[in-house]
């Protein structure tokens, strides 16, 4: 079980790092993409927590559709934060 623990901690730090970058950056497009990376990494944690149904849903929606919706909306409005 030690390998599961190592994978879980690596995924945890990846998720926190991408969430912090999404808050800190001034570029909204990068923020949306790193939010999608955080969702993808969290879906691997769902798999480690024995929830395969939720992992499939989160991988296709959190990383695919939510990011696409944000990117289309950023394309219709403006890219840079003041």
């Amino acid at each position, binding site marked *: 079980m030690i390998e599961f623990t190592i994978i*879980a901690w690596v995924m*945890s730090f990846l998720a*926190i790092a991408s969430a912090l970058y999404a*808050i800190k950056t001034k570029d909204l497009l990068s923020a949306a993409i790193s939010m999608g990376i955080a969702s993808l990494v969290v879906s691997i944690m769902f798999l480690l927590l024995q929830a395969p149904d*939720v992992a499939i849903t989160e991988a296709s929606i959190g990383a695919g*559709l939510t990011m696409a*919706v944000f990117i289309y909306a950023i394309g219709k409005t403006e890219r840079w934060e003041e």
Partner: protein
Amino acid sequence: MNGVIMASYFTVASLLSIGLYGVMTKRNLMKIFISLSIMDTGVNLMLITIGYLPGGTAPIENANFAKYVDPLPQALVLTAIVIGVSVTALALVLLIKYHSKKGTLEYKGGMKW
């Protein structure tokens, strides 16, 4: 205490705190929605982690396993994720209407909170 549970609780606390900080300090409306989406992911992960039992397997009946994790939070989160993306899309459409009226996304009012 199990290492996987500790890691995922740490992730939950960090994601919720990061999202709360973003909602409190940012003035760009798109950034506020991104923060809310991060908090959404954190809440889903918290519900799944509370239902996890150390040593259990996924709740699919199998003669080889005796111990399963709690299936009820998984059923709730499964629908909550799909609802989350549609509500996010509705909010972003309102944002596009706001931008076409005002020409900016920054909130320039007085006090934020």
